[in-house]
């Protein structure tokens, strides 16, 4: 079956612009996660959705970052007034559910964001 897909694969924008990054999780997965990965580092947690609601957004760096999942499937990560420090690969992952002793997260290929 299809895995997690993310669009676009690459996004180049100018400082101060607004960007949206999209994630299509695996069908039937109720839990969805966003991570950010900088060069040479491991992924860093941003936000987690269980269904339509953001169950934990403690990893969002500031209020320029916002994510939605209105129908419990596709999610969009939105970044306002982008800064050069926002440049990174943004990874999306999904899992069947989060409240399980076996929580394998399936990751998408990521969106590489470059802020000039």
């Amino acid at each position, binding site marked *: 079956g299809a895995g*997690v897909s993310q669009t676009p694969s690459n996004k180049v924008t100018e400082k101060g612009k607004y960007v949206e990054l999209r994630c299509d999780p695996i069908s039937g997965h109720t*839990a969805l*996660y966003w*991570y950010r990965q900088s060069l*040479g*580092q*491991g*992924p*860093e*947690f941003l936000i*987690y959705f*269980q269904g339509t609601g953001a*169950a*934990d957004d403690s*990893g969002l760096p500031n209020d320029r970052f916002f994510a939605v999942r209105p129908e419990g499937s596709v999610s969009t990560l939105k970044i306002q007034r982008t800064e050069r420090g926002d440049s990174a690969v943004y*990874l*999306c*992952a999904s*899992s069947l559910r*989060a*409240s*399980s*002793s*076996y*929580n*394998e*997260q*399936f*990751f*998408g*290929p*990521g969106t590489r964001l470059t802020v000039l």
Partner: protein
Amino acid sequence: LAKTTQPISMDSYEGQEVNITCSHNNIATNDYITWYQQFPSQGPRFIIQGYKTKVTNEVASLFIPADRKSSTLSLPRVSLSDTAVYYCLAGTGAGSYQLTFGKGTKLSVIP
């Protein structure tokens, strides 16, 4: 979430067995140990998870001693395609939605 420590990099020749050890001295009673693999330009991929003793699947084995303060990921007979970054994570299995990655171990397989 327990802090994990693993080597920054390792080299191995094709066909050899590779063992990557991870330290997690402060692991909690209900923490599981999970390993992910990441190839360039891809998201991480789950390899294996365990709680104690030994777990084996078609890809790797995971050895966890009785004190659970460390674990070893074993990759049998590596090939060039096993060149990747391997991450060790230690956290609660139940309800563990927030994966905490360190810098991982960059494994380079040499022909």
